[in-house]
């Protein structure tokens, strides 16, 4: 999550940098004197000049905007200049003191329009107004439905109409429409309005933002018929309009008889998918009708083609009736759709998903995010088809729970079928159930601690005779000795015994003749007897004033061996001692000589600061993984290492060229202690971080929300501004009418140029989206 945020920030920064470079590279606004300016004017070429008196305050914002408009206007062949009205040279355009804030549009040296600078409030407004003035003939401004109908009627059978509504003149949407008109104005009739009522009267709802319609009038031959209309559903930007008009110009329906994988139309180039309706001779008429209907529905959203299956050389799946081509180079999808609506919704949803996907381009998430990386979850999932022999157990419900549990000794496992850990545990649990079936009767009855009632029974207990079948689970017998009056000591011991229930069998003896036992084992009452069966030794520990937790600790420690074989099961007990481990790695049983050496050192108390242990790779194969982590190349076994797990994580290896003798080992340990040995590796100390990022739904939701709000359009300009521009327009009529041909020429000269720019930025746009 953090990381994706960071990447976003980084992108933001690089954008800013790019803009800075961009700005400095752009032609800046030339500053000329009036005389100089008029001498540069070329016949038939349009030019916008801002006449101002030196640098008077308040003009700088306008100049900044004008500066920004220089490049786009130059693209349309319109030069821009700032003309300084110096005292020596007077010009009528310099005006009087108060009237300094004006810009003038010339063609050649003929004045076309003058603009008060407040109508040119930003770069968009400048470009929009200038193009609007130049394209007066191509773009009809209308205010009533009647105007619109007149245009429509006049063009039926002749040309198509691009009708747009913008909230005000000079808005970014207006500029986008004007830029499109610059390119397409001589092929389609552009009609513009700022009247909401007009838009309402043609049945548009939800007029929050700018709208653009394409009226298909060219194909209408019957003058009483209405022109079909297609609404552009995307926000009004130059690129979107370009893309939209391109698709309007493309044939509505194309018939093809070639491999859909090879087919390409303008739609794919514009980033829109292709939909092939599969047809065969027998149903051709009906299919064509369907395809046309779909084509109208998807106009502007996808290209629709009729694919003639009979004359097709490649095979397509037999039942497929629709082929969907998302983009160039991506394998086509063959679909079986039984409802035309499904075709539509597929395209519309695909567009939506695409929008979402584009946003994710910068994210670090790869496909891995969806791949299970939890070993327990994955193994349980792979094992999901196994039938566990649950019949060995009783399945409880809330209703049967109390009755069953109260009625007998029970081991109850609470688990959830969806929880991998509990399902993994369930497998072991069932294994235990199978084993317990055999030994249940005896193990069940042992209370903890076991109450021993005679000296003879106590001896049997200590020798391991009493619970013979359980001796394999416990290497030590624990017996508490108390005189009958030591009630509180007995209580503590009993509590400790209960705590250890399930791990250790404890016994308690507190008869009158307890002295027989205490004398025999030289114990001072209250006392604890620990009988180690393997070693055949019994030791006694006084328990006077020992609390429950301490008793537990004493008993637990009694089970620790001096030189244990370390296993997956017992490692945690030895780690609790918080000492560095001295591990002897052995491939199989331990060599007696090694064992003897270490036991001798233990006995001589040389190893008190360490936990000596050995690891049998045959019993604990994962030990190989450990060795691989310690050594680049694992030397031959057996191997002795010291692992400083709890402070520093250094790993030291006993030199493999030395013999493991008491003397060598001792010397090595001393050097180690003195810091004279260098470690072979340091265990990594990094924290366990999230293995993968998560989906950043918050930014997806916010991006979607902001998309929605931008679609609703920018703030509109004040109503008065609109009024003003209407009036100006009428005033200017004669000026422009005189030179229609020149205007067209400028347009032709620049059209190809504009196109290139558009295509370039379109591709760029696609990537950045």
């Amino acid at each position: 999550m953090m990381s994706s945020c960071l990447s976003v920030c980084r992108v933001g920064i690089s954008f800013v940098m790019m803009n800075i470079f961009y700005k400095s590279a752009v032609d800046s606004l030339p500053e000329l004197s009036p005389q100089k300016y008029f001498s540069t004017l070329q016949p038939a070429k349009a030019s916008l000049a801002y006449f101002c008196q030196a640098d008077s305050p308040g003009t700088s914002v306008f100049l900044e905007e004008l500066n920004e408009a220089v490049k786009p206007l130059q693209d349309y062949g319109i030069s821009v200049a700032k003309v300084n009205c110096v005292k020596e040279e007077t010009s009528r355009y310099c005006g009087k003191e108060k009237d300094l804030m004006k810009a003038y549009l010339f063609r050649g040296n003929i004045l076309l329009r003058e603009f008060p600078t407040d109508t040119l409030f930003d770069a968009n407004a400048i470009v929009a107004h200038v193009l609007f003035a130049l394209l007066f003939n191509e773009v009809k401004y209308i205010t009533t439905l009647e105007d619109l109908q007149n245009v429509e009627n006049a063009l039926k059978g002749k040309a198509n109409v691009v009708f747009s509504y913008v909230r005000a003149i000079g808005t970014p949407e207006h500029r986008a429409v004007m830029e499109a008109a610059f390119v397409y104005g001589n092929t389609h009739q552009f009609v513009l309005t700022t009247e909401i009522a007009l838009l309402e009267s043609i049945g548009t709802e939800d007029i929050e933002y700018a709208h653009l319609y394409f009226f298909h009038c060219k194909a209408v031959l019957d003058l009483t018929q209405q022109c079909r209309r297609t609404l552009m559903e995307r926000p009004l930007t130059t690129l979107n309009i370009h893309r939209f008009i391109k698709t309007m110009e493309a044939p509505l329906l194309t018939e093809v008889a070639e491999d859909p994988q090879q087919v390409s139309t303008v739609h794919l180039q514009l980033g829109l998918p292709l939909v092939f309706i599969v047809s065969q001779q027998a149903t051709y008429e009906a299919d064509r009708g369907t395809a046309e209907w779909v084509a109208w529905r998807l106009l502007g959203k996808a290209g629709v083609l009729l694919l003639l299956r009979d004359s097709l050389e490649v095979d397509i799946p037999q039942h497929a009736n629709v082929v969907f081509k998302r983009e160039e180079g991506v394998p086509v999808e063959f679909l079986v759709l039984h409802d035309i609506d499904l075709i539509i919704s597929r395209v519309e949803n695909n567009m939506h998903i695409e929008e979402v996907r584009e946003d994710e381009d910068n994210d670090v998430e790869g496909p891995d995010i969806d791949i299970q990386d939890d070993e327990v979850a994955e193994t349980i999932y792979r094992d999901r088809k196994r039938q566990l022999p649950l019949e060995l157990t009783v399945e409880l419900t809330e209703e049967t729970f109390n009755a069953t549990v109260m009625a007998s000794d029970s081991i109850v496992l609470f688990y959830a079928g969806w929880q991998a850990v509990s399902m993994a545990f369930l497998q072991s649990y069932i294994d235990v159930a199978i084993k317990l079936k055999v030994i249940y009767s005896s193990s069940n009855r042992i209370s903890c601690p076991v109450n021993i009632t005679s000296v003879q029974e106590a001896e049997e207990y200590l020798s391991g005779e009493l619970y013979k079948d359980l001796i394999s689970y416990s290497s030590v017998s624990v017996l508490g000795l108390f005189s009958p009056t030591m009630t509180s000591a007995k209580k503590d011991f009993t509590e400790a015994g209960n705590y250890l229930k399930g791990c250790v069998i404890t016994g308690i003896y507190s008869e009158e003749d307890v002295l027989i036992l205490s004398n025999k084992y030289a114990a001072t009452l209250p006392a604890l007897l620990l009988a180690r069966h393997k070693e055949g030794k019994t030791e006694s520990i006084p328990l006077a004033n020992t609390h429950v937790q301490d008793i537990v600790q004493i008993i637990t420690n009694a089970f620790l061996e001096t030189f244990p074989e370390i296993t997956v099961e017992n490692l945690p007990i030895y780690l609790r001692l918080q000492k560095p481990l001295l591990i002897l790695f052995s491939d199989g049983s331990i060599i007696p000589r090694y064992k003897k050496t270490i036991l001798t050192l233990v006995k001589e108390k040389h190893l008190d600061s360490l936990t000596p242990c050995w690891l049998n790779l045959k019993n604990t194969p994962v030990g190989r993984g450990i060795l691989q982590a310690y050594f680049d190349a694992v030397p031959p076994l057996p191997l002795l290492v010291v692992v400083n797990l709890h402070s520093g994580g250094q790993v030291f290896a006993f030199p493999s060229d030395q013999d493991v003798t008491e003397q060598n080992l001792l010397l090595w340990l001393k050097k180690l202690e003195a810091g004279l040995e260098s470690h072979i590796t340091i265990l990594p100390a990094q924290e366990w971080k999230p293995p993968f990022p998560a989906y950043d739904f918050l930014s997806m939701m916010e991006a979607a929300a902001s998309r929605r709000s931008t679609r609703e359009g920018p703030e509109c300009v004040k109503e008065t501004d609109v009024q003003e521009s209407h009036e100006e327009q009428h005033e200017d009529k004669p000026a422009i009418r005189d030179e229609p041909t020149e205007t067209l020429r400028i347009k032709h000269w620049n059209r190809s140029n504009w196109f290139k720019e558009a295509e370039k930025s379109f591709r760029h746009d696609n990537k950045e989206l």
Partner: protein
Amino acid sequence: MLILAAPQVAVSAQASPCLFLGPIPHASPRASRGSSVVQGLTPLVCRRMGLSAAAPLWGPPGLLLTIALHPALSLRPAKASAPPHRDYCVLGAGPAGLQMAYFLQRAGRDYVVFERAPGPGSFFTRYPRHRKLISINKRYTGKVNAEFNLRHDWNSLLSHDPRLLFRHYSHAYFPDAGDMVRYLRDFADRLQLHVLYNTTIAHVTLLKDRQAWNGHYFILTDQKDLAYQCSVLLVATGLSVPNQVDFPGSEYAEGYESVSVDPKDFVGQNVLILGRGNSAFETAENILGVTNFIHMLSRSRVRLSWATHYVGDLRAINNGLLDTYQLKSLDGLLESDLTNLAIVKDREGRFHVTLKFFLEEANQSADAITLPQDDNDNFAMREAYDRVIRCLGWNFDFSIFNKSLRLSSGGEFSKKYPLVRASYESKGSRGLFVLGTASHSVDYRKSAGGFIHGFRYTVRAVHRLLEHRHHGITWPATEHPITQLTSSIVRRVNEASGLYQMFSVLADVVLLKENAAAFEYLEEFPMQMLAQLETITGRNARHGLFVINMEYGRNFSGPDKDVFFYDRSVGHTEDAWRSNFLHPVIYYYRHLPTEQEVRFRPADWPLPRPTAIHHIVEDFLTDWTAPVGHILPLRRFLENCLDTDLRSFYAESCFLFALTRQKQPPFCQQGYLRMQGLVGTENLRQHGVESGLLRDYAAVGKRQEDSSRRPGDHEPAGHPLAPEPPVQPPDSNKEEL
């Protein structure tokens, strides 16, 4: 004997496997001690005094009769100046009142319920008039999980007694109202709730007293002028006043509350029904077959509950008239503001609809009143009606509350309800809570707080709030190690009924402990009170929190929406945020939001902007347990919020980590290193090796011997899926991006 509890049994507070009396060493992952399990199993124990203390006064059921007959006797004040005192007084023994009584009783609180009728649930003795409840009584779900089954049981109240489930009272999917009355009577009797029947509280006023819990007492006066003094007042009186719209001729309309329910009385008649709610349609349904036609007139268009997913809107079970209207029968629906209308009666006693405006025109005799059709001869309601029936819903009865209580109506959009906070406490007086149907202003037209299946949970939330405020008992919570977080959430979103019914009103809250090593899980907290969580619950939210809510898609439903559109559901986890059907949403906050943030949250958001958010993708079966589709993305979300690794590991992996790394993942720390490692069986290990997540070290050894190659030369040590923490330290990782 070994016993398994059925999957998803709700008896354990933990989702982890717990051993009960378990003697198996080392094999139980993070097994809880027996005692904690027992606690989870034992029914709630009465706190402090409990029943025994209350018994001498209230007695067994037999004694209740005496009390009911002589309420004055047992409560007669010792001194005239001090009326008998109760800590909690509940107004109304309907479902909400009884539900609150149950919780108070279980907590051993000093309380009483006042009920004006001779038995509980008196509303249901008369309503709905046609006797069919529209709350579902789903008896079969295929699940044994009692909590889950409550999701589909809209009639039961909450209790520990499984006999008090509504399915034992009716077999009908839409039960008869009489069964509800019987159920509520049993509920009150069997649980021995303290209800004073035949006691009409006629007046409620405030008495300032600095000693009182809330700085004042509520003084309740009954029909016999007996007074009761209460520290906390819980108003569960429902909506009892039929809503009347005032217009000329409104007196000709028969009310839903009294109109005949016998279809014979409507044979061959033209009927006009005012209203477009369930009572209006229920009335129409009853007489659809015998009338000439039914016209239904209301201010706004009909809202279908399947489109709004609000259970109070028109339910399909009542919508026969919509069907016949759209299938061109003579019945029809009209929209008009009733307040502009007038009804005039002609000489034959038939009714004509006209405009109030026409009546206001100078004095005209009854027969000369202008009718719309005089000007406009195709006016829709130009036919005369034989009957006009008013079915305009109900209002809260404000009349018994003294002005000093400042109990006001809920504003323009929920006028019929008293105004309350999201904690159900009145804005006007501290200590006055509104429960049940009357509390619906909080989620009117959104969630189910106005209905039994919703308010049984909001009542519990209010009770938990009171337990903390007045008795120092913190909001109940279970504490778990962080490794249980994913499972705790998965369990709740799959079985919890309170979250499901009261979606976007009650939410679960996870409060993180220091260093996010553990967490407390709180259930069903009123989410609009999130900023006040610490004061309300007595718990600490300093270390960050998660809020678990259920939500529909933001723009999915509404009265005019097509909720059956193609591709209305999403299936991919990355599209989860666009889910439309009810699905779990988890909010993560690094800090508890402030009151300001909650109040000025973005439109459409139930909570302020979180630090991060997660949607669990909608599921057709409402079963969010798919390992990769549901659980994995949730874990990734939690991991990234907490900046840790929440995967689970077998003991062998933990063993390897313990000897090769200085830090251990939480699962190993909290399980393996505490002697509660998870040992996989051989065949699980095999699966692990096949998946590449585990390595077969035994095979490594063999191969090594066979080929005498050095280890590491050929081993997939850097396998991308191997359970390793990120190879690079995370810091440098970030810098690279």
